């Protein structure tokens, strides 16, 4: 049962027959992990907290820097120097006091990530390195946890949802981490600040759709976004039988 306050806060959700009180309760009972409280994680966290996701884990070991604020909209000038998870929690808690926020101020690795993802229903990859994206893919696939891949750079972004054991994974398409000398060019460069807002919001929408159980998820296709051309493109992705992450399932 939703409380009177919840009925008012989420009234525009409750008016949607596809969501309704049942969907809203599912959101309240759900747990989402956002890995990275940066460009992608900021809008995703804001919208998921606003939408009424009951528990949100935010993992990031970094602190807020002035150069983050052009795109990492969950932070602000008053939280410079603070841990990003604490800065984000402050803003998110003010947005929705009922949301349980789990702050995870550590860099995740092969050892601590498997048990962490197990505690959540859905994971958002909002990290900023390819090594992290491959690691999250491999661990979510091995642990059977659905997740949303997201990536941004300059004026282009991409996202895909992975349901382990059901749909193709990130590695089915990208196979192997590029050589180290090529990675930086794919990870670190200018970014139009609005770009992660678009992709991170799409990732949040996938999490909500998955939890409520509505619509068609962004599985078996990578959605790419070209901001300058203002074009979305869908690249069909098939399960790769030779995939080293999910091919033997």
């Amino acid at each position, binding site marked *: 049962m939703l409380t009177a306050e919840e009925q008012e806060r989420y009234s525009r959700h409750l008016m949607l027959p596809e969501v309704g009180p049942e969907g809203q309760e599912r959101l309240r009972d759900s747990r989402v992990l956002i890995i990275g409280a940066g460009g992608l*994680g900021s809008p995703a966290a804001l919208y998921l907290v606003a939408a009424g996701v009951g528990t949100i884990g935010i993992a990031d070991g970094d602190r807020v820097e002035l150069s983050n604020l052009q795109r990492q909209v969950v932070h602000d000038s008053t939280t410079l120097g603070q841990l990003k998870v604490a800065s984000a929690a402050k803003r998110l808690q003010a947005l929705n006091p009922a949301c349980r926020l789990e702050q995870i101020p550590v860099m995740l690795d092969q050892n601590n990530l498997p048990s962490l993802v197990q505690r959540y229903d859905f994971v958002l990859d909002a990290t900023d390195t390819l090594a992290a994206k491959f690691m999250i893919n491999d661990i979510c696939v091995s642990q059977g946890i659905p997740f949303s891949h997201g*990536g941004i750079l300059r004026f282009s972004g991409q996202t895909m949802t992975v349901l382990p054991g059901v749909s193709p994974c990130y590695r089915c398409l990208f*196979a192997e981490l590029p050589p180290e000398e090529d*990675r930086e060019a794919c990870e*670190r460069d200018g970014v139009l600040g609005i770009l*992660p807002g678009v992709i991170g919001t799409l990732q949040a929408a996938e999490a909500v759709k998955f939890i409520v159980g509505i619509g068609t998820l962004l599985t078996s296709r990578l959605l790419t976004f070209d901001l300058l051309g203002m074009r979305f*493109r869908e690249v069909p992705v*098939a399960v790769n039988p030779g995939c080293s992450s999910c091919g033997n399932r």
Partner: protein
Amino acid sequence: MQVSINGEIRQLVDGCTVRQMLEELQIKATRVAVELNLEIVPKADFAERTLQDGDKIEIVHFVGGG
């Protein structure tokens, strides 16, 4: 011959390989995944894999920022 690259029709010389196509497009092979008629082309095969008239090719960049 005529192929489709990321949904756009392009002309390539007959016998063109995946690697030659990427060179013509000035794309570094190590920074992309290439899908040929919905199948991923392993990077090790880029140099030998020849394209055919009517092929549908998708080139997707690694995008690692966040």
